């Protein structure tokens, strides 16, 4: 791999051992992937910030790297506790204090603790054609697809190393030749709620694996909420990092994204219905937790939920979690949406990823969610069963305490 003088200086330890470690990682990753050079990045978004995933090794690593500072704007993804009101949620104190220590170490390195998987709703907005180093999977696919920026599927560590060095090895999705659509997906089903787009993504992701799907037959007025739901679930059942929608996503508007297509599939109403069944692991009628906001809710989603709860109460013993970022919650506070959700007995949670919360919170409860990604990961990571349905069904379940 050809390194610039500046990169050689990093490698020789001139900027300290933390920077040296980071450039060693990036060089090795580049050589493994046959990159010939580094490319400067314009932003980074970093996960691995949940104590549940990273564990004590994660804290050790951050201490090791905390002598370094980021060279580009960098934001932190969602974490394992609500950053404002974890005490009210019975989060074990030990877990909270470890999570808090991680947060402080990231901040010391210069990373903005936006604590969200939708950083583009909190000020870290990718631009068309920019090279980035982003993670986790739902943020990666949003940057590549919704915005037409370029990022590989980075890990917690490689995204952090890139933020510290301001570079990433030039391979994979940084090269136009790897951004062509490969599987043409004809959608022949009417889709409405974010959960429908989640089901579509989950169905297609299984078939696509790591290839790039191109969707045709979707309406041109797709909202950002539907796109983020589609992307997150494509990256859940598959390793998809980039999709195109004809007439909607930026690369599909500017280039012939169909030029690499070698496979065609059709998705019908039945496929979507079956995906709802596949993702519903619970047979229980009673529900205990309603989890909304994976990926994190936009202000429009919060407004609809607060409207659905008007003059209603969340059933006794049922928890309604609506997850979003600190920035979006500030607007929700201003608009009175937060208070409306609170009055009904629900909670607007900030900065937290529902799957990253400690399992003690879940116990043996039954969860209902409008997120295909959550429906996939909550059973695996939190050990409880879920109902997967549309947003209306979820808010109804919050009020009645029953799944019907």
């Amino acid at each position, binding site marked *: 791999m050809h390194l610039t003088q500046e990169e050689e200086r990093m490698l020789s330890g001139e900027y300290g051992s933390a920077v040296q*470690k980071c450039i*060693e*990682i990036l060089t*090795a*990753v580049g*050589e*493994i*992937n046959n990159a010939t050079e580094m490319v400067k990045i314009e932003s980074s978004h970093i996960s*691995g910030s949940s104590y549940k*995933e*990273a*564990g*004590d*090794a*994660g804290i*050790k*690593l951050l201490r090791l790297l905390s002598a370094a500072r980021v060279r580009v704007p960098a934001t932190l993804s969602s974490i394992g506790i609500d950053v404002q009101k974890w005490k009210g949620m019975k989060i074990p104190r030990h877990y909270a204090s470890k999570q808090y220590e991680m947060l402080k170490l990231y901040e010391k390195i210069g990373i903005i603790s936006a604590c969200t998987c939708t950083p583009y709703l909190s000020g870290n907005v990718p631009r068309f054609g920019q090279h980035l180093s982003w*993670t986790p999977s739902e943020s990666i696919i949003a940057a590549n697809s919704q915005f037409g920026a370029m990022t590989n599927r980075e*890990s*917690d*560590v*490689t995204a952090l190393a890139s933020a510290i060095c301001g570079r990433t090895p030039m391979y994979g999705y940084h090269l136009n030749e790897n951004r062509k659509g490969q599987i043409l997906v004809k959608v022949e089903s009417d889709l409405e709620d974010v959960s429908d787009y989640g089901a579509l993504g989950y169905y297609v992701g299984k078939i696509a694996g790591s290839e790039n799907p191109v969707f045709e037959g979707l309406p041109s007025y797709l909202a950002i909420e539907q796109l983020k739901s589609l992307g997150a679930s494509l990256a859940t059942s598959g390793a998809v990092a980039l999709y195109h929608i004809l007439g909607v996503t930026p690369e599909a508007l500017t280039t012939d994204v169909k030029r690499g297509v070698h496979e065609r599939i059709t998705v019908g109403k039945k496929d979507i219905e079956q995906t709802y069944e596949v993702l519903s692991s619970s047979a229980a009628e009673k529900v205990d937790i309603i989890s909304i906001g994976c990926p994190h809710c936009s202000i429009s989603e919060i407004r609809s939920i607060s409207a659905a709860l008007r003059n209603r109460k969340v059933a006794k013993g049922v928890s309604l979690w609506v997850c979003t970022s600190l920035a979006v919650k500030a607007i929700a506070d201003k608009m009175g949406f937060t208070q409306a959700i609170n009055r009904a007995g629900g909670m607007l949670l900030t900065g937290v990823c529902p799957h990253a919360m400690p399992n003690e919170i879940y116990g043996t409860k039954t969860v209902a969610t409008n997120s295909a990604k959550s429906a996939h990961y909550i059973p695996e990571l939190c050990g409880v069963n879920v109902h997967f349905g549309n947003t209306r069904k979820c808010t109804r379940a919050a009020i009645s305490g029953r799944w019907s």
Partner: protein
Amino acid sequence: MKVILKGRRVSKGTAQGYAVVSSEPISFLGGIDRETGTIREEISGLKGTSIAKKVFVFPTGKGSTGGSMILFGLAEKKKGPAAILNAEADTITAVGAILGGIPMIDRFDKDPVSVIKNGDFIKVDAEKGIVEILRNEDQGKGRTSSVMCDST
């Protein structure tokens, strides 16, 4: 005479130890116990074998990117492998090895998974990309002899 394999440095350093060889790809997240360094999956008849302080030989890594952190965590607890030898390195294992200061080499002139046997004593010099293999049965007799590695 000893058997020498030449490869490409992935993570710097030198080490030595006895070989643990898997003919199947390894996922550190789920595949290896994060506290003890014991293999948890039924791979190549190695379930229950510890990779701590061993020269761990396998074709390539697989699975979740969280595997890097498992490998780093094991190294911090002194339960990590002494060195890693791969046919073709993957990003997850390479990142974990660099973080943990574990020497690692890949892309050898001969396939390390078929040349190296369980229990061989291995000297690894990742700076030079060189691996020296001393066969176990000969070790017991207090001598080393040549092993034909092209017989695989």
